[in-house]
């Protein structure tokens, strides 16, 4: 762990960051989603190299793929991303061991190094939340913005249609 400044402000921020590591889920409020797709855009930024919106969309060699997707049948729109299930079917289906459930955080993790792109998990996920990366023939999925200080889809939704709930 990085050493941190121990002034009260920093400690407070650190503790809040710590909260992100707790068990919890992102819940969705479909009625207030306006279909602006900012969650998709910021998810792309979150998974880009530079974490900079201009660079992520215009200058990075390969544009990162969003892991949240907005379902749309107007006037209905709502976002969906990995539900980090308690007993994930994708983990049970993964033939390479690339998918795993972190017992500490409850997060369902995907190890791109191990993934062979068999798409067994695409068939197993009841929510359709494992996305295909055609270029690399692998999959991508929501990682709850691990190693970032906020969950980008949650913090950038202008209508708070995505909320993180500790459990």
């Amino acid at each position, binding site marked *: 762990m990085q050493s941190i400044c121990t002034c009260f402000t920093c400690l407070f921020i650190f503790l809040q960051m710590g909260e992100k590591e707790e068990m919890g889920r992102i819940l969705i*409020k479909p009625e*207030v989603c306006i279909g602006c797709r900012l969650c998709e855009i910021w998810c792309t930024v979150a998974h880009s190299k530079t974490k900079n919106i201009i660079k992520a969309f215009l200058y990075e060699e390969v544009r990162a793929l969003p892991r949240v997707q907005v379902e749309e049948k107007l006037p209905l729109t709502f976002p969906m991303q990995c539900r980090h299930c308690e007993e994930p*079917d994708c983990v049970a289906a993964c033939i390479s061991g690339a998918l795993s459930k972190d017992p500490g955080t409850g997060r369902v993790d995907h190890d791109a190094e191990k993934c062979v792109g068999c*798409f067994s998990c695409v068939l*197993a996920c*009841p929510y359709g939340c494992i996305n*295909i990366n055609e270029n690399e023939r692998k999959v991508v999925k929501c990682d709850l913005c691990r190693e970032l200080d906020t969950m980008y889809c949650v913090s950038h939704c202008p209508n708070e249609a995505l909320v993180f709930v500790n459990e």
Partner: protein
Amino acid sequence: MNEFDYVIIGNSAGAIGCIEGIRSVDNTGTIALVSEEAHHVYSRALIPYFLSGATGTSGMAFRPPDFYERAGVRLFLNKKAVKINFGDKEVVLDDGNKLGYGKLLLATGGKPVFPPIPGLRKKNVFSFHSIKDALGIKQHMAGARNAVVLGGGVIGLMAAEVLLKKNIKVCVLELADRVLAPVVDVTASRMVEETFREAGVEVLTNNTVAAVHGKEYVEKVTLQDGRTIPCDLLIVGIGVTPRVELAEETELEVDRGIVVNEQMQTSVSDVYACGDCISVYNFVTGLKQPLPLWPNAYLGGRIAGVNMAGKTREYTTGTSMNAMHFFDLNLINAGVNATADGDADWHVVSKLDPEKKIYRKFTIDRDGVLRGFILIGQVARAGILLNLMRKKIDVRGFQQELLRDNFGYADLPDLIRWHLLKEHMILGVV
């Protein structure tokens, strides 16, 4: 004698599922694992990826190197279980050692079928099933020029693709009149055959090997149609049968595979089984049958483990399901696949675009419940369809929507959608 709370025979998907299932309930019970193979747990489903060079042998490891240690599992690797005394609750190993068990799991898997063709056991003839096979094939692949693959099922076709990509001339022999015959329908089989032929693989249906020629090594094979073709590498991929030798001449009920109930219990008390060695409930057909697939092995094992550790859980979501890819063709299927409408019992909704190699097909029963589907070309979000099958949703009200390439929850009627997603949504906020 060594005594353990849990003894597991086998070291693959089912065994790992069981260990993880036990440990989700019981952190302290003692676990022993017996495996005939000497390796750390590996995924045999990665053999094609190993041979293509996509992953090395270390990449085939299904769990990290410290997995057993962290799970507190005592290993008996390179040991074969040769007998079980159900009365004394002990497993006898080939070195004479005996392991006493509180609960026992049989996860002995399947064994590749070898057809009774005289002289087939030669040095350049391999199954496509174990690391040993894979290493042997790798060694022979280097100098091979003409490979013959016996069997046009999933395994045979995966082998054929790998070999072709190593610049070996490949001929696939399939006894049925089409490849992937029990798995998909005729239309899908033809699309797959075309993909292989376009890539340069010779696919011969209604055909098989009648005789092999050569002393230590196969040099030529004579086909059923009378032709003789050169062959310096022969892969046998005609299927697996449940490995039930430990059940023979015992009171364990066997019907093709070891028969288990929904809690993964066999007919003998305190003995459970999972994976390729069993006959298990298929929720689509309602029958007990072998379902030799990775997810069924892992999940069946996991649920067995939970039950062995004293909690009650049932495995009722298993069926036939495959995610496959051959060259640039992606194919996903699940359940049963009728070829045409069947009287009043079921009907078919489908769309086919041969140019773009896109096919979507759904078999719907008289109650409107999805019994099976095939997706070719467009496989994204396939799991939503499997979920509709498992939840027995009547799809007739939106059956044409199923044909949309990005079919999703938005395409479902409100009531069904919010019912299926209720744990994840906050409704009624406006």
